């Protein structure tokens, strides 16, 4: 094979990395480059430096060290039996690329992952070497996210956590059966064991830092994971339950969902299967309901269709919940407690906080609510305000056509 230059390698290894949904650069400690000999800073809140036409944020240089792999996971484009072009970066090439991009303000930092070559330990050593060189040789203070390998030596994984802001291990599939079928060389026990080890390291070092200021930081932006949606038999109910158990057991910052596009071993006449993007979107919405709106996992599951276990695709899960549990509405916007206001379809966390502050001074009418929300039409059937009571709307047996988005709009989002 002819020697590839950096640009050709980048083409292959960025292409191979795009199936990882995460590009977040948030949640870490504040750092500056002042007083150092290098560059880089972090703000706590991440920055998206560009957006691709797929609507995704480009915050980090997201690449694989190599897309060669000794594993043969069926859902993965880089599996051993796939015939994609292979390439491999040296650690120094990644370091130079990261710095060149960072200096031009293209990125917040690096998200490095890799196919497994030779052995898990060898691969992990290479990943850690990139992070070490950036931090130690170049005093780089930007964001680093490292994907760690569950089977690697715990000492190597620990080093990764010392250099990185965030570490992650993908659980890959929501069900054990799915993992067994699609990633036969991976094991749920090993993946979860590694996540548990990571959690205790994060807690231990955070604890040490409260007592010794000089104690080293360990992955200050925590750990995250990703699972593929639509490749195994898991229902939305199964996925929501699994995600909440992962959040709880391993102290995860985020669970990412990646809509799976089946890549059939088929003739060219077989049309392509588009990834189930709307399903992925609904799962993210339910994730937000649990993280910011105080919904219990079983409540999100209750918003799903009881016979299929699937969340509706045409309306969001919050609206689905409200339509299913109509007895809670309408809520008096001037009296209802915060946790109930958060359940009103169309009211976000910011709007609810603004309502709570404003109503300390006066009673709020519908026009006040309109100034605090994007669409008062969506909120109206579910609230009582000064001079407003939705009698006609709330009594209608079928409220859904009044509040659900129109079909044409849905198609637009689904495209």
């Amino acid at each position, binding site marked *: 094979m002819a020697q590839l230059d950096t*640009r050709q390698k980048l083409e292959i290894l960025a292409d191979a990395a795009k199936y990882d949904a995460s590009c977040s650069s948030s949640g870490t400690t504040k750092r500056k480059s002042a007083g150092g000999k290098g560059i880089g800073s972090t703000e706590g809140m991440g920055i*998206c430096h560009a957006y691709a036409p797929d609507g995704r944020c480009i915050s980090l240089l997201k690449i694989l060290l190599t897309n060669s792999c000794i594993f043969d996971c069926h859902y993965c484009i880089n*599996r051993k039996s796939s015939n994609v072009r292979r390439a491999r970066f040296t650690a120094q090439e990644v370091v130079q690329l990261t710095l060149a991009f960072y200096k031009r303000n293209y990125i917040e930092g690096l998200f490095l992952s890799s196919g497994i070559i030779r052995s898990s330990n060898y691969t992990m050593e290479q990943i850690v070497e990139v992070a070490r060189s950036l931090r130690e040789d170049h005093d780089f203070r930007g964001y680093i996210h490292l994907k760690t390998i569950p089977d690697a030596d715990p000492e190597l994984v620990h080093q990764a956590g010392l250099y990185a802001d965030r570490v992650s291990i993908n659980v890959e599939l929501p069900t054990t059966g799915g993992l067994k079928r699609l990633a036969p060389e991976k094991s749920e026990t090993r993946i979860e064991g590694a996540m548990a080890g990571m959690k205790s390291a994060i807690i231990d070092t955070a604890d040490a830092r409260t007592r010794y200021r000089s104690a080293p930081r360990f992955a200050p932006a925590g750990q995250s994971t990703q699972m593929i949606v639509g490749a195994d038999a898991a229902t939305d109910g199964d996925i929501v339950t699994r995600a909440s158990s992962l959040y709880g057991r391993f102290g995860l910052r985020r669970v990412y969902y990646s809509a799976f596009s089946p890549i059939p071993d088929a003739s060219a006449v077989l049309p392509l299967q588009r990834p189930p993007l709307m399903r992925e979107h609904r799962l993210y919405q339910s994730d937000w309901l649990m993280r910011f709106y105080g919904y219990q996992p079983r409540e999100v599951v209750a918003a799903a269709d009881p016979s299929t276990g699937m969340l509706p695709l045409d309306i969001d899960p919050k609206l689905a919940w409200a339509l299913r549990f109509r007895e809670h509405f309408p809520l008096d916007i001037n009296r209802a407690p915060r946790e109930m206001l958060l359940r009103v379809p169309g009211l976000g966390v910011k709007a609810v906080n603004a309502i709570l502050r404003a109503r300390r001074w006066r009673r709020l009418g519908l026009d006040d609510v309109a100034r605090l929300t994007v669409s008062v039409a969506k909120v109206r059937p579910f609230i009582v305000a000064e001079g407003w009571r939705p009698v006609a709307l709330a009594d209608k047996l079928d409220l859904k056509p009044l509040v659900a988005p129109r079909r044409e709009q849905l198609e637009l989002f689904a495209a």
Partner: protein
Amino acid sequence: MRIVALTAPDDFDGWRDAARALVAARVPAGEVVWQVGDVPADLFGDEAVDLPPDAPAFAVSRRFVDLARSVVMHADPERFALLHAMLLRLIEQPGRIEDMADPLRRRLEDIAKAVRRDIHKMRAFLRFREASDEQGERFVAWFEPEHHIVRHNARFFVDRFNAMRWSILTPELSLHWDGDTLREGPGASRADAPEGDPTEAVWKTYYASIFNPARLKVGAMLKEMPRKYWKNMPETALVGELIAGARAREVAMIDTVKPATGGNSEAAWAALREEAMGCTRCPLHRPATQTVFGEGPVDAALMFVGEQPGDQEDLAGRPFVGPAGQVFDAALAEAGIDRAGVYVTNAVKHFKFEQRGKRRIHAKPGVGEIDACRWWVEQERLLVRPRLTVALGATAARSLTGRTVTIGKERGRPIALADGTQGWITVHPSFLLRITDAAQAEDERARFVEDLRNAHALLQD
């Protein structure tokens, strides 16, 4: 009219000092003309403001000060007067700073939000180009902000690019950092910035490669990266061709990986069947004995989809082995089709029944159950890839097409399925068992065989 002259468009301190005096003198907001630099804002304003030297001190909340700092940076010429009006109101009712539903408060909040967004977008979308000189590496950026935010953002860039020498040029103001001190200069033009940077080609390669053409969402991109920022971002030159070529790249993506799964379908089918054995996607798994998965060669050109396993299938764990299965086998033989060469499965993989005494009576699966189980049928069809799929009865037709089908209307002719292959709809063999009139039963049976024969003939073309 009174005139207040501020030194710069983002002169917060100047505004604060003047506002303090104006509020102390209870001057209404409408009587003040705010002027930036030497530019007269209003020809009729002619009275210089008279500031009382010892204005009584008053306190406003931290929230208002923060709000005012942001609002002052906005381009709207009314901003100073709006803040003044808000301040007068807060003197009377300090708590009203919390009332976001108040129209004036809301307007100021929207102004502050636009400023915060502009600040953030400058940090995100500014691009440096290398302009190294005899002293070494140096970087220069050209940026056109919407509001007066450049001075505010200086700290961010100093903190981030501390060990680097750089300049940020904007139409109103330029910033220069030499690694040690920050210097302000006058406004510049695009021509003062370097024309290009070889690294931009590498960056564009990254931008094109990280984009997933299977997930095109142009609206989401435009919402966060509006066109007004594009002219100073090198990668946006690619957007048009990336969108236009998305479909072709999607096809290529799938072509690249296509041959790789080959030869593996037997193993994949066995793994799929094993996973299906533990299926709990709908409540039918509870009373049923076992999952009854499809069977037949995984490279079959013809697939039959029935309704659901019956009493005997549920116990045997194989599809079409009971009475309906015998009718089916006989009809296949008469139509000249070898059952060993076709793949046979069911739309619903668990037996649904009502217990009556000792007998388990077949119950029709509901739409929810059909849709829950559809996932398995789709996986089977993805693996087997039959050229023709025959739906036996309404349940199978629903599973295959996703809609409710009237058998009488659509039977006996090829229909196009969503994946581009052909489908065929006919009755379920159990329908033949339920006909009591012997002559009619024979007629229907012959029609069923005819359907199978015609379907099979499609494959010979």
